[in-house]
């Protein structure tokens, strides 16, 4: 049933004089096609979870399973989107998009056409030969999205992908990402600071606690909100109710840390 499973995952960061426990026995699972959001204070290890799932860092203990197999062997199945687009400025848009296929040695004519189609689908026709410096922030993040989708990942990891954008662009991109993920039936984990974004985009919200990072509480998003596009979901009457609950949970965790 569960597609992606984290089983008692812990992680430590070591430095010269000290160590910090970033994650403490994190366990949760994600169903295929499900959209899970991680919210929590800074330093609660949200991004660490994504890095571990992506296979970029190795957890100090615990298991991460994708389709019941350890994650290491199925690296190709993960797509990772970062806070900033990190498009390579010396590559054209098309070459940026084809970075994944190039690494996997699957850069064929067919995938090239697919890249062009996807670019058009996100509203960026005719930019294939341009360089990133000639595109706006929102356009660049859309290119980064296409770069992530082109390898057809089974799981998408979104690490605050809209936080560097202006509000208007952010709302538009939320809708676009939401629509694309539903169309291609992708499983996704979104890390965000924005409670509204978490509620309007995801099916389930995991609220995390810091020092060490643990999962404090899980909220299921009501089905009515799940079926709405993020933009209209914000206007749903159940939205505010859930927002208040998540807010309260986050503040409870924060209670003993002054602002």
């Amino acid at each position: 049933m569960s597609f992606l499973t984290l089983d008692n995952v812990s992680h430590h960061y070591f430095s010269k004089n000290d160590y910090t426990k970033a994650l403490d026995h994190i366990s949760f699972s994600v169903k295929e096609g499900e959209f899970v959001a991680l919210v929590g204070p800074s330093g609660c290890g949200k991004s660490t979870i994504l890095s571990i799932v992506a296979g970029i860092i190795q957890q100090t203990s615990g298991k991460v399973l994708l389709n019941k197999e350890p994650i290491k062997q199925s690296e190709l199945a993960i797509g990772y989107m970062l806070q900033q687009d990190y498009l390579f400025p010396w590559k054209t848009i098309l070459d940026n998009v084809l970075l994944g296929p190039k690494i996997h040695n699957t850069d064929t004519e067919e995938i090239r056409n697919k890249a062009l189609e996807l670019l058009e689908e996100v509203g960026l026709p005719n930019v294939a030969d341009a360089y990133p410096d000639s595109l706006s922030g929102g356009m660049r993040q859309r290119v980064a999205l296409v770069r992530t989708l082109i390898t057809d990942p089974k799981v998408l990891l979104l690490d605050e992908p809209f936080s560097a954008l202006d509000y208007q662009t952010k709302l538009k991109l939320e809708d676009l990402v939401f629509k694309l993920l539903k169309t291609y039936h992708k499983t996704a984990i979104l890390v965000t600071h924005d409670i509204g974004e978490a509620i309007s985009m995801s099916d389930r919200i995991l609220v995390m606690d810091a020092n060490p990072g643990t999962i404090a509480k899980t909220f299921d998003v009501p089905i009515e909100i799940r079926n709405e596009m993020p933009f209209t979901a914000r206007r749903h009457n159940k939205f505010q109710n859930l927002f208040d609950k998540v807010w309260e949970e986050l503040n409870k965790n924060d209670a003993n840390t002054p602002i």
Partner: protein
Amino acid sequence: METKSDQRLFEQHKQKIKREKKIVFAWQLIILVSFFSLWEVMSKMRWIDPLIFSSPSKIFNHLTSKILDGSMIIHTQVTLFETVLGFIIGTILGILIATTLWSSTRFAKIMDPYLVILNAMPKVALGPIIIVAIGPGYLSIITMGAIISVIITTLVVYSAFKEVDPNYVKVLKSFGATRAQLFKEAIFPATLPAMISTLKVNVGLSWVGVIVGEFLVSKEGLGYLIVYGFQVFDFTLVMSSLILIAIFAAIMYKIVEKIERWLIKHTV
């Protein structure tokens, strides 16, 4: 009406830029001309000793006659050949060593103190040893030109490799890239600007290495002419060689600048 005045403002702006350029160029020309005329006059009026400081007219006559009889061309060719080769070998070797350091963090840690010592050491002091080991000739002079720039290139390029934004690496790693792929797709292209700026430094360094090499042992080349002129007290010859060196070093620098503009159109 409005567009017309906008256009006019733009024209005025362009005129202003053009005028500024002309003024700068005029001053540059004035400095050049007054330097050489002052030199000429001072030498003619014997305010400075013409035997030591020569004069622009003497240098010009000397250069034209020596270029016409071909001897100066041979000397220049030799030195240019040695410098360009030393420069290329030094730079490429430096980048290669930096790459091996990057490919193994442990190797880099092991090598660290040796690189610091080699960098601090004045490389021209190795001249006599190089000449004895390799033998007097082009090869040891080219080695001098290369050795003087190789360590500093290694250090600068290696630290540039380490400073590449780790998020580019993260993107590649999320695609499962190997270390060689990380280098090819992110590290190397991201550090091209740093490598080009070491090229600019290396142009100057290679000239130092080659000229010192020629001072120590050579039968041809501009460095040889300087030492020979000094020994026979022919300072017109020394000055002529100096002027040729200045001209060709500047040309090499300009070529590197051209390469830079061509290579890094879209980096950062």
